């Protein structure tokens, strides 16, 4: 090994089928030294880790899990481009590390056979030998080593066994010459590839042989359309002719690839795997029998989903995480209030910055809880079964079973729900799921429902005493959840018929063996997602929060306030400051006046003016400028409406949805200059329907931008959801007022 070579880190591409322990191996190799990002222009996550062995630095590039290196979408193209060094901004790959599942070698070798054709040094890591043994399979490793043309290293990724041998093999392979691997294809096919390569070379120089082969094999038309070799019509005709010749020779494209590669895998495995004569019934088999059973399977599924949903809903509260965060933020506010003199800076720090940070961290308990569950379900093998059980239902709206858990999670919070869509490999399905996820009624809508239902829906009960059920209020709450769900189903159907129209994607899904989830894997996944959210969405949420603060604070023109009121406030304030124990009546009067001033300032702020400006627009919904104003202020986070209504109605900040004061004030509020109440049942319903359907959540839009790699989709979501919310609120109010009258 030369000194110059040793000083440069070795770039290793980690590749493998899903469910082979690839992520576990990646973590075992790089520990916490990881960086996560996105490849530009696609939705693929970029994970880079670092490892070290005998002073040699390794850069490990974790490529998305895949069964095949046959790109049919820009996302799938990323792995091929990285491997072939076709992404200028990425390090060229020195050696490929392909991890395979020992209990499932035949199918795993399909991918290995493709990797070998890339012409890069390659090392195969053999994982899950223990699972193979539990299945009763006996592996002759020496024989496999002889029959496989590249080095093979047995590892136990979850226990960190075999890593040193693996790193040694990687370093050796990278230094040595590339083993010349014979193509698994028949002679006639290889000749066609050679001829095609010569023709391609005349159009675009230096196209790797693997891509030429793919061009011949790719009947989906993606590679031809992607412009890898330009859009030459003559070349397309050549390819079609070549396929016709191959079909006539009994080597039909695309079937020939699978036949050739599985044929190769069969040869490599000849005499390697001996199966028991009697197929052994494993624990996994018995578990699967129950979990996919018509009755028991459905029952367990319902229980698991109920558990997951209630956990995401309640754990953040019950565990005290929310309480802790609230207290931390409150202490921070108090500290700022003590250190920074009253004025614009203090208000910016407390209302803009601390509440903005609060708006980010408030999601962490939910994200941690959801991803704890998802990681457990994924690692133990149940995730695929959940998709299997729900597929039929989801296929009715054009999606697949894989969309079920992201959508269910969105009922707790759309942010982790959207992050969970990464399991959906079909891009159209994933996009539709992301676009409709915010319509599921998340937990942040609940305070709005609670406040308005408590104040305006009659508490008619059935039963009495402790089991008195306010049935009408429950029906209305249920209706709000249904509005979002029904709108989501409708929107998914429309998106599938319009923007994301196309052939039904295949639902071809591996059902992995069950195993005990690894705690390290689960915790790692949980924190990774939480951190990803903070750095991906955090800054934007903070920025939006500061902007809305500015709108509500400025121009802060004190001349709009009655001077007598200001004088009285100053006099009272002096009295309170002077006395060690000021009388309660004085304090109460001061608070009332402060709240009135805050309310008037808000009315005259940019936000208040905006509220007045849009009044004609929201009037048909039955709203006055105050509600319009509160709706605008709740763009960063919908639950803010409760506090905003508190300020507008001169109750001061810190009102929550259970506050009897706020409920009473809303009930008594009247249109300016009349004694006609602002709120009645139709207005309350119209506000609730609006909040059920509107995209008032900067975090959701920010995470959507991150997951889709473009502002187009959050913009579309905002526009379609706001329009939908407006129309639905309009219909609700107009129908309601005709049926129920103003009372």
């Amino acid at each position, binding site marked *: 090994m030369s000194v110059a070579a040793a000083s440069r880190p070795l770039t290793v591409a980690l590749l493998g089928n899903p469910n082979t322990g690839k992520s576990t191996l990646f973590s075992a190799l790089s520990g916490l030294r990881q960086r996560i990002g996105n490849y530009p222009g696609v939705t693929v996550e970029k994970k880079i880790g670092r490892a070290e062995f005998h002073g040699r630095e390794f850069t490990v590039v974790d490529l998305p899990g895949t069964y095949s290196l046959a790109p049919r979408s820009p996302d799938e193209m990323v792995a091929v481009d990285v491997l072939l060094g076709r992404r200028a901004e990425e390090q060229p790959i020195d050696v490929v590390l392909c991890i395979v599942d020992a*209990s*499932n070698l035949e199918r795993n070798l399909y991918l290995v056979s493709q990797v070998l054709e890339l012409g890069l040094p390659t090392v195969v890591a053999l994982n899950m030998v223990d699972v193979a043994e539990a*299945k009763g399979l006996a592996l002759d490793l020496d024989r496999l080593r002889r029959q496989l043309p590249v080095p093979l290293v047995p590892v136990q990724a979850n226990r960190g066994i075999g890593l040193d041998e693996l790193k040694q093999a990687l370093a050796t392979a990278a230094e040595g010459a590339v083993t010349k691997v014979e193509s698994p294809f028949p002679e006639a096919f290889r000749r066609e590839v050679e001829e095609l390569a010569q023709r391609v070379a005349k159009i675009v120089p230096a196209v790797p042989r693997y891509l030429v082969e793919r061009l011949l094999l790719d009947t989906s038309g993606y590679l031809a359309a992607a412009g890898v070799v330009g859009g030459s019509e003559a070349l397309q005709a050549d390819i079609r002719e070549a396929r016709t010749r191959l079909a006539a020779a009994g080597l039909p494209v695309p079937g020939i690839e699978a036949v050739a590669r599985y044929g190769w895998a069969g040869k490599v495995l000849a005499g390697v795997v001996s199966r028991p004569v009697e197929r052994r019934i494993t624990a996994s088999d018995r578990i699967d029998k129950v979990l*996919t059973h018509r*009755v028991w399977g459905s029952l367990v599924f319902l229980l698991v989903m109920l558990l997951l949903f209630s956990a995401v809903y309640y754990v953040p509260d019950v565990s005290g995480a929310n309480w802790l965060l609230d207290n931390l933020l409150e202490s921070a506010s108090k500290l700022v209030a003590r250190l920074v003199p009253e004025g614009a800076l203090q208000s910016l720090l407390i209302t803009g910055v601390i509440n903005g940070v609060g708006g980010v961290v408030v999601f962490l308990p939910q994200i941690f809880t959801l991803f704890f569950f998802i990681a457990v379900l994924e690692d133990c093998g149940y995730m695929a079964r959940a998709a299997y059980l729900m597929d039929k239902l989801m296929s009715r709206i054009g999606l697949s079973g894989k969309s079920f858990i992201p959508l269910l999670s969105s009922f707790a919070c759309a942010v982790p729900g959207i992050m969970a869509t990464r399991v959906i490999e079909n891009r159209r399905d994933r996009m539709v799921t992301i676009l409709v996820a915010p319509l599921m009624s998340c937990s942040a809508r609940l305070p709005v429902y609670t406040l308005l239902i408590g104040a305006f829906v009659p508490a008619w009960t059935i039963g009495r005493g402790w089991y008195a059920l306010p049935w009408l209020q429950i029906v209305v709450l249920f209706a709000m959840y249904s509005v979002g769900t029904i709108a989501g189903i409708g929107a998914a159907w429309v998106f599938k018929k319009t923007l994301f129209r196309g*052939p039904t*994607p295949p639902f071809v899904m591996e059902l992995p063996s069950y195993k005990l989830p690894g705690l390290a894997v689960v915790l790692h996944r949980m924190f990774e997602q939480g951190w990803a959210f903070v750095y991906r969405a955090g800054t934007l949420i903070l920025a939006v929060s500061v902007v809305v603060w500015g709108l509500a604070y400025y121009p802060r023109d004190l001349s709009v306030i009655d001077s007598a009121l200001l004088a009285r406030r100053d006099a009272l304030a002096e009295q309170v400051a002077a006395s060690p124990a000021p009388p309660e009546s004085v304090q109460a009067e001061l608070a009332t006046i402060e709240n009135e001033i805050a309310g008037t300032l808000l009315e005259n702020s940019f936000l208040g003016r905006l509220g007045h400006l849009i009044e004609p627009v929201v009037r048909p919904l039955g709203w006055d400028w105050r509600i319009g104003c509160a709706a605008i202020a709740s763009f960063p986070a919908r639950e803010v409406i409760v506090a905003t209504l508190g300020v507008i109605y001169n109750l001061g900040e810190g009102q929550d949805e259970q506050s009897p004061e706020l409920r009473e004030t809303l009930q008594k509020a009247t249109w300016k200059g009349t004694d006609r109440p602002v709120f009645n049942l139709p207005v309350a319903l119209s506000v609730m329907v609006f909040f059920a359907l509107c995209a008032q959540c900067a975090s959701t839009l920010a995470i959507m931008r991150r997951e889709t790699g473009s502002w187009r989709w959050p913009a579309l979501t905002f526009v379609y959801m706001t329009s939908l919310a407006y129309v639905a609120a309009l219909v609700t109010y107009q129908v309601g007022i005709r049926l129920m009258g103003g009372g």
Partner: protein
Amino acid sequence: MSTLATLPVGARGRVVRLDGDDEITIRLLEMGLTPGVELTVLGLAPLGDPLELELRGYRLSIRKSEAARIEVESL
């Protein structure tokens, strides 16, 4: 000749033919459903679709509409 969609739960079969050149066919081929491969139908999801197969030593789930493209002979 019957298709994989008509094979009853518990039956064993051998793939005879899989035609077509669209994404679904390519995916099925990649997952190992090539002519000559033997498989077992292990079960059906509670709502009647998709089905669970065992082939090449692992378990795979595909929809009936996909299974209907695969010609099989019973074993």
